[in-house]
């Protein structure tokens, strides 16, 4: 037992060292984020000394941007489950590795949520009053006590699952299904619960008619499952770009003899079948296509099949012989792996359209089957073969466009529901003309001349509607438009769920008074600091997770 503990601790230590290491981009990014964190810390120190009078909050508007950000980020954290469900319930293999990115985002988001709550407290030093057993915990009466439990539990769950899966990948030991599947399935329910409980914080207040409505819970979930996956789509593209950042290969390999290509013969396919038993289940039509579309290359020793940095549209299967895969980093050449019969290479960049991440050179005279990307996708549709190919791809972390498009689909559906629920709310508020509509009137049209929030909410609605239209149109299958739609959705939902939910609940006050709210500079700087902190946490987590998932950071290396 202690040996396992020691191994884990050394893993953590190496992760910590890894996190401090990086190129100039990494230092610049983390350095700037750290500086912003300090600005936030300084602003908070001022608030700690002078009290919450340094914020724009008043007795009439008791919660402001801190709780608005908190509400938005709980949704982001809950949305990590939006990756878990397709992978573990519907067995979508494209997204398999990306679950970890969602859960790491959840960790960063929950830490931000906890930070926002702490800075909002009048007496943060008394937070120990919240600890059951030591303090006095009003559970199950107070929804805030529920929130404390579910948020911290969710944090623990995600930390455990990520640590366990990453550690297993690092140690190259297969994870024990019973040690991660139950927490993951619990996590699905738990993710929905954290956001529902947060919604109930508002819904449960009978004295605030703007919030005391059953639709708030479903709206929270719908908007969370829009904004969260949208954030993940953007984050994954950043990760993909950084992780596959190819450098032009330095130093061309000396001119090597060219390979000889010919159509695959039945013998070739037999050899492939022997080397790759899963190939047997490929349906006949696909196998026919192999004869047409694929080529077999006879490569002499020393022949370069792929070049790092070059574009590529083909994947390769080794039929006979041996191929080694090398990477050149800053002038140093390093052998990543050696491949034998039945193994594949070049499939990731073929499927993604990204430049080759390594150079493949034949060690000895070999036969390789060169398969175009489209045909490769057909092969992968076979259950067993697809699983095998993907399993080998996971060692190298593929963030495929198809994964992003699956997420797009999720965002699309969630946004439709979100806008539909918004329509429901607007009808309910404005059709009857009863007195409880004041807060909504204030938000959308202004009340008695007070219109501070009106431009914000209409901007949010415009963002959401434009995002919805983009997501419905096929144009958003192109990544650039998808990114635009995601940014619009995130901004729109951040406004609508943050300021657009929290502030109007307080205006007018329960005695009909209108006191508007606007965050002070100090308040804004604290928010900035916490957002920088969250991004920093996520950056550091990715800094460690990506190499592990790519198979480059293992116990052996």
């Amino acid at each position, binding site marked *: 037992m202690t040996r396992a503990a020691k191994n884990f601790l050394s893993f953590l230590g190496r992760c910590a060292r890894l996190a401090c*290491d990086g190129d100039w981009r990494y230092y610049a990014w983390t350095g700037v984020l750290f500086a912003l964190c300090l600005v936030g810390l300084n602003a908070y120190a001022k608030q700690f000394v002078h009290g919450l009078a340094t914020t724009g909050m008043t007795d009439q508007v008791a919660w402001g941007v801190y709780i608005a950000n908190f509400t938005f980020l709980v949704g982001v954290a809950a949305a990590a489950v939006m990756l878990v469900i397709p992978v573990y319930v519907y067995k979508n293999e494209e997204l398999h590795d990306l679950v970890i990115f969602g859960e790491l985002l959840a960790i960063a988001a929950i830490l931000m949520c906890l930070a926002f709550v702490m800075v909002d407290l*009048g007496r943060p030093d008394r937070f120990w009053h919240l600890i059951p057993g030591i303090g006095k915990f009003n559970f199950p009466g107070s929804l805030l006590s529920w929130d404390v439990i579910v948020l911290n539990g969710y944090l623990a769950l995600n930390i455990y699952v990520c640590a366990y899966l990453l550690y297993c990948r690092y140690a190259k030991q297969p994870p024990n299904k019973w040690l991660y599947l139950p927490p993951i399935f619990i996590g699905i329910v738990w993710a929905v619960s954290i956001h529902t409980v947060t919604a109930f914080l508002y819904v449960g207040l009978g004295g605030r008619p703007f919030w005391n409505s059953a639709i708030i819970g479903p709206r929270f979930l719908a908007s969370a499952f829009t904004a969260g996956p949208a954030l993940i789509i953007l984050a994954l593209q950043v990760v993909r770009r950084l992780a596959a950042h190819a450098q032009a290969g330095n130093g061309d390999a000396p001119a090597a003899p060219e390979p000889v290509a010919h159509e695959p013969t039945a013998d070739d396919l037999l050899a492939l079948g022997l080397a790759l038993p899963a190939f047997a289940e490929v349906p006949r039509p696909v196998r026919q296509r192999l004869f047409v579309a694929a080529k077999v290359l006879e490569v002499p020793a020393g022949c370069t099949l792929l070049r790092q940095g070059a574009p590529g549209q083909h994947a390769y299967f080794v039929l006979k012989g041996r191929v080694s895969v090398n990477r050149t980093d800053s002038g140093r050449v390093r052998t990543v792996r050696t491949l034998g019969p039945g193994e594949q290479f070049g499939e990731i960049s073929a499927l993604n359209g990204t430049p080759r991440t390594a150079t493949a050179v034949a060690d000895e005279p070999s036969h390789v089957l060169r398969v175009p990307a489209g045909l490769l996708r057909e092969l992968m549709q076979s259950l067993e073969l697809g699983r095998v190919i993907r399993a080998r791809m996971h060692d190298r972390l593929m963030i495929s466009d198809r994964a992003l498009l699956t997420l797009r689909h999720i965002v699309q559906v969630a946004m439709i529901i979100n806008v539909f629920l918004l329509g429901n709310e607007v009808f309910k508020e404005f059709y009857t003309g009863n007195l409880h509509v004041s807060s909504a009137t204030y938000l959308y049209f202004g009340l008695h001349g007070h219109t501070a929030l009106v431009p914000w909410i209409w901007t949010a609605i415009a963002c959401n509607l434009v995002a919805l239209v983009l997501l419905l149109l096929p144009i958003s299958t192109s990544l650039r438009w998808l990114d635009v739609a995601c940014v619009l959705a995130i901004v729109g939902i951040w406004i609508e769920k943050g300021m657009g939910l929290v502030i109007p609940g307080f205006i007018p006050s329960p005695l009909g008074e209108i006191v508007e709210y606007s965050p002070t500079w100090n308040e804004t700087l604290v928010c900035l600091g916490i957002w920088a902190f969250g991004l920093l946490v996520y950056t550091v987590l990715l800094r460690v997770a990506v190499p592990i998932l790519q198979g480059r950071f293992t116990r052996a290396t």
Partner: protein
Amino acid sequence: MAANTSLPNLAAPAPETGGTSRRSFLRTSAAVASGLAAMAASLAPLRELSDFSSVEEFLQKHYKELTPVEMEQALARIRREVEKQYGLRPHVRDLKPMDGVEFVYCLNLTRCIGCRKCVHACVAENNQSRSPEIQYIRVLKMPNGTFDMEKGDHHYATPTVPEKGFFYMPVQCHQCKNPPCVKVCPVDATWQESDGITVIDYDWCIGCRYCEAACPYFARRFNFAEPKIPKEQINPDMAYLGNRPRHKGVMEKCHFCIQRTRVGKYPACLEVCPTGARKFGNILDPASEVSQILRHKRVFVLKEEVGTLPRFFYYFDV
């Protein structure tokens, strides 16, 4: 500086010579050192933190769990703090509710003339902060013919009151029988006692303001900054759950002048009301004036539909 786990372009380049590695070590440690210095400097405002809570206050248990000895220690601590801050020795005690008593407040809207004497008497009696201003009672000037509080004017400053065509409605904590504020407090810092008063343990409140969001009557107030009370205006007659001076970061609200009512006196707002519009007493005593009012007058409560069951009844005489 490069780790053995070399990484594609996220790795620092390998040191070629010993000189380079020393330089890279220096530049990295310079950055780290200045980062740590910046972090320490960012906490510089804490230098001004003078009157933060003492260790005893920090460790103090919840009011309901204090033994009599611990309560006495807490009261002694409060006496010391008040003496240090305001230069007078207060009379602080922990008053328990009386048996067979449930307080009810009645307010005669025919008689209220909106003079706001109750507001300021309350401020003086209960040691409320003058700057930033805290007032438990809010008087609404309502036009005749409506109870829509959005039509109420909180900031009227006519030369004389009452003004024709209006009636005046003071609102303060109703000490509801079904209090939403008590329900939502995550640390049980506010609860209702047996005589009906909803109290706050100022040394337990964490300042999350959930209760303020929950109250349908705008009854609760938060100390956004350290309260300022002129020394000569301190009321030295204090109770632990009542009008002892509070600090920044905690909630407070009307507590029916617990330091007066639990020794049998009327609350300050009632004492000063020039027209006798305010009535207070024990509803469990059938001979009290509040019992008479609930029996004979047409009383109503605010926002009855919210289900809070307030103990504050409004009525009209004529």
